[in-house]
């Protein structure tokens, strides 16, 4: 019967964690502040205790999780209101390459070695430090790089080339189910969709994936992998 208790508790705690993460807001792990990542790890660790030990009451996991969620959303709300508070919690971005010059003191402050710097630059597709005008280590630890103008890749605007604007593309049909939200994003309607399908002699339940853009372009993948 302990197995059944564990099973039910795991489901309950899973729902609680999903709700907690939802309340705390959407962010990728790579974009989280350090404190947010620590809180997420704590929540998962705390949730595992009553999951594994049925002798511990469920509340012994729920209350700490609720407290962490409450602290996290309070702090994130206060950080939005006060830049001073934000600076206190998250710190400020550090410029490690300023106007092409490597800032040794800033790197030492971050305990960043030259190997770390080179690695982060390579991850940004920069293979020579000489190409960099500014390199900034953000508060979440990621590096932002601004190349010297002569090392930047030319854009269509710089070359005077007019590229067609396809607008936004979204998945409007997924496994036979229409997404009205995506249709709205592309500025299309169900009537347009039905018209396209009729012209192609296709039924909705034959579609695995259909994307559309705001210019009226579309791409269909039928079930079975046929285009």
């Amino acid at each position, binding site marked *: 019967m302990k197995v059944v208790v564990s099973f039910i508790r795991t489901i309950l705690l899973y729902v609680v964690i999903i709700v907690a993460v939802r309340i705390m807001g959407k962010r990728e792990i790579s974009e989280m502040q350090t404190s947010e990542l620590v809180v997420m790890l704590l929540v998962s660790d705390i949730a595992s205790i009553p999951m594994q030990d049925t002798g511990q*009451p*469920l509340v012994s996991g729920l*209350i700490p999780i609720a407290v962490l969620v*409450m602290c996290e959303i309070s702090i994130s709300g206060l950080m939005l209101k006060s830049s001073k508070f934000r600076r206190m919690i998250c710190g400020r971005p550090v410029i490690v390459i300023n106007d092409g010059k490597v800032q040794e003191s800033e790197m030492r402050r971050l305990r960043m070695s030259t190997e770390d710097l080179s690695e982060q630059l390579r991850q940004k597709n920069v293979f020579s430090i000489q190409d960099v005008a500014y390199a900034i280590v953000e508060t979440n630890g990621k590096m932002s790089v601004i190349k010297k103008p002569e090392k930047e890749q030319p854009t269509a605007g710089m070359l005077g080339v007019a590229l067609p604007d396809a607008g936004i593309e979204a998945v409007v049909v997924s496994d036979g189910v229409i997404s009205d939200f995506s249709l709205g994003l592309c500025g299309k309607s169900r009537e347009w969709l039905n018209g396209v399908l009729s012209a192609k002699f296709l039924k909705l339940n034959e579609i695995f994936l259909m994307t559309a853009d705001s210019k009226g372009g579309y791409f269909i993948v039928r079930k079975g992998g046929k285009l």
Partner: protein
Amino acid sequence: MKRIWTALAIFVILVSVSAAGTSTTRKICNETSAAVTAAKAAQENGDAEKALKLSKTAVKGWHMSHRVLCMYMPHSKLESIEETISGLPMLCKYGAEDQFMADCDRSLEQLSYLMESEEPNMQNIF
């Protein structure tokens, strides 16, 4: 602003649940301690019948409270008290006065510890 209100709502719920838990624990511990103390006093006065009745009351009351306490207290703590208190009626019934008194003291000590461990004081926090 919505986030602050959400945090505030969670805070209110947490404080309410914590306060309810602490006050319930205190109430149950006091009631059970009173019953056990009364049973011990009756035994000391030589009234074994009354001591038996009071110890049975204490056991019954604890069994009912156990269901509530289980929801927010480690079960191992409650089980040890359960073991001590459950033996009191039989000890009283079969005249094991010394053991009965010792187990009364033991259960009172366990209840006192349970109540103290749930108090939000400096010793428990640190």
